[in-house]
């Protein structure tokens, strides 16, 4: 009995030792900073010789009254609501296309995937050229059709939408790979069974393909949603949040508050809000994925 207990203990010790490297990395770079951030958000920002003091929910109250926070939050929400479905629809469309028997489909797949390989900053610079008001590609095309120049990134009405286009362009190719994998998992017999019933292409998509790639769609949607709330590099590279905060997103605002305004406690409070948003998205993912969306 005694010996048995010892070996059992040994196994636990061994197990924890094996997990230790991962635990240390995860804890020191993810969990501890997250917890510290939450704690910091209840304190004031230390400035010079003024130490930080506990101020409770003051930061959060300030946040509720902060118009730029609301601007960033709403921008981000709109960003997610637009980019996620459009990127998914495009990705699925492209996957369906390159899954078919067409000539040069490997080249086409590669072409669709290329934006994913590019670093965001490089992609942002390419699009900066597209959007430039005088000699930019988009305006050249528009002018050829007789329309007036549009200052894509300089106009508050178009800045956010221009950023969305870049995100969609960059993400759709990546998500296409997931959909392509999902489509290739569907047994061809199912399509033949549908052909035997003379089901039209749209019916086949709606009744067979769409439900069968649903788990992938959900997975992609959650990831796209998380990405939408994490976008910062292209805002920095393309608009700097402007004009007049028209393209400010949450993470970019946090970055500004923390490293331009050096208000670290307020940034911590903002980060906590972002953490809550992402946390609830992740929770939704686990909840939905475990439920009936998985038909197997």
């Amino acid at each position, binding site marked *: 009995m005694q010996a048995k207990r010892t070996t059992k203990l040994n196994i636990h010790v061994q197990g924890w030792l094996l997990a230790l490297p991962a635990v240390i990395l995860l804890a020191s770079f993810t969990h501890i900073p997250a917890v510290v951030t939450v704690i910091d958000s209840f304190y004031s920002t230390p400035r010079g010789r003024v130490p930080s003091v506990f101020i409770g929910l003051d930061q959060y109250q300030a946040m509720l009254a902060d118009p730029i926070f609301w601007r960033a939050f709403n921008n981000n929400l709109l960003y997610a609501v637009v980019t996620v479905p459009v990127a998914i629809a495009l990705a699925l469309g492209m996957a369906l296309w390159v899954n078919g028997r067409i000539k040069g489909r490997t080249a086409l797949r590669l072409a669709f995937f290329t934006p994913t390989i590019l670093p965001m900053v490089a992609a942002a610079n390419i699009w900066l050229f597209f959007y430039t008001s005088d000699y930019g590609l988009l305006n050249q095309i528009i002018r050829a059709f007789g329309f007036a120049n549009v200052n894509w990134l300089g106009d508050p009405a178009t800045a956010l939408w221009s950023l969305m286009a870049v995100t969609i362009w960059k993400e759709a190719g990546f998500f296409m790979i997931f959909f392509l994998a999902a489509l290739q998992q569907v047994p061809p*017999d199912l399509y033949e069974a549908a052909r035997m*019933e*003379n089901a039209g292409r749209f019916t086949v998509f709606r*009744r067979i393909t769409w439900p069968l790639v649903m788990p992938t769609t959900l997975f992609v949607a959650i990831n796209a949603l998380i990405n939408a709330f994490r976008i910062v590099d292209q805002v920095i590279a393309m608009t700097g949040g402007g004009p007049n905060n028209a393209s400010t997103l949450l993470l970019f605002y946090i970055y500004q508050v923390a490293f331009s305004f050096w208000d670290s406690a307020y940034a911590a409070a903002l980060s906590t809000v972002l953490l809550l948003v992402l946390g609830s998205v992740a929770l939704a993912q686990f909840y939905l994925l475990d439920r009936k969306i998985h038909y*197997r």
Partner: protein
Amino acid sequence: MKSVVVRSVSKLWGEARAVDDVSFEVEQGTLAVLLGPSGCGKSTTLRMIAGLDEPTSGSIEIAGKDVSGLTGSSRGVAMVFQSYALFPHLTVADNITFGLSVRGTPKPEMAARLDKVAALLGLEPLLRRKPSQLSGGQQQRVALGRALIAEAPVCLLDEPLSNLDAQLRQELRHEIRALQQRLGVTMVYVTHDQTEAMSMADRIILMRGGKIEQNGTPADLYERPANIFTARFIGGAPMSFLDLDDGAGGAVIAGTSSPPLFAGPGKGRVLGLRPEDIAVDDAHKSGLLHATVTGVEYLGAEALVTCALGDRSILARTRGAAAPAIGAQVSLSWHPSAAHVFDAASGKRLTIDSHAATPTPRLHTLHYQGSINA
């Protein structure tokens, strides 16, 4: 009335001829089996009847109409796939009614037909389950239900039982045959299993290398195989083949002192004998041949006895209890009408000795002679 007519149909995949000028007809309300080893073109033929593949040349008629350019339900055929091809995300009920709902059948009619098919196949308790919650046999029934609910005049089955265990296969074999006869549908059934073909078919179309080797009733194929391939393929235990040679009084078995079997040359001819047609007796009894037992495969009710005949071997079937010991000397005999003679070069059946029910007098005599010799 002809339900399915296949007229010199060929299918080429690039250079390869998967199906090569195949023609046959299936009577309405009968079950035809396309039989053959893998790669013989039987599944391709079925897919062309279904309309999933278009023939390279030739035509297919269903219920008297040329159906080229039509697929599946619009040409009046339904199909059961080897893998069942059930939609994993739909319930059993939705799987069965899929075709009806695609065609916009009204809900009440759909429900009525679903009830009928479910009752027919005993699927009532399973209707709300998903395919993954069913056993292989149940999935097979659902696939069958999906094909039958359309009430198409022709039902195609592509190796429907190959994924099931032996016991279940036998049960479903009976069930499918009974259903087919009860509903009066025409079935075209693809299999590589000759037992399945023999037990179910009204007509067997035996294929090899994209061509039809023989087309006839199961009894035709068993009793009068048109060639060595058919003879080898049909029948439980394999037929034994013995080369013949010219002898003094007619054809004799090469390398043995057998009595002449029939008048005429024996060289270039092959004698085929089914194990079940060969009687094994003690060596001192009369018989056509003497041989040594080299192997006994005991199967309970019966035993398969391998006998050495010179450098050739011959397989005979005996009652399990009466199987001789290995090494024993035995005499072998068979009724002349049980002997199949083929041309060695072409493999074609030869009708030298009549295999009719009444053996020719000469053969009688020879048989008798053989007995005296022994």
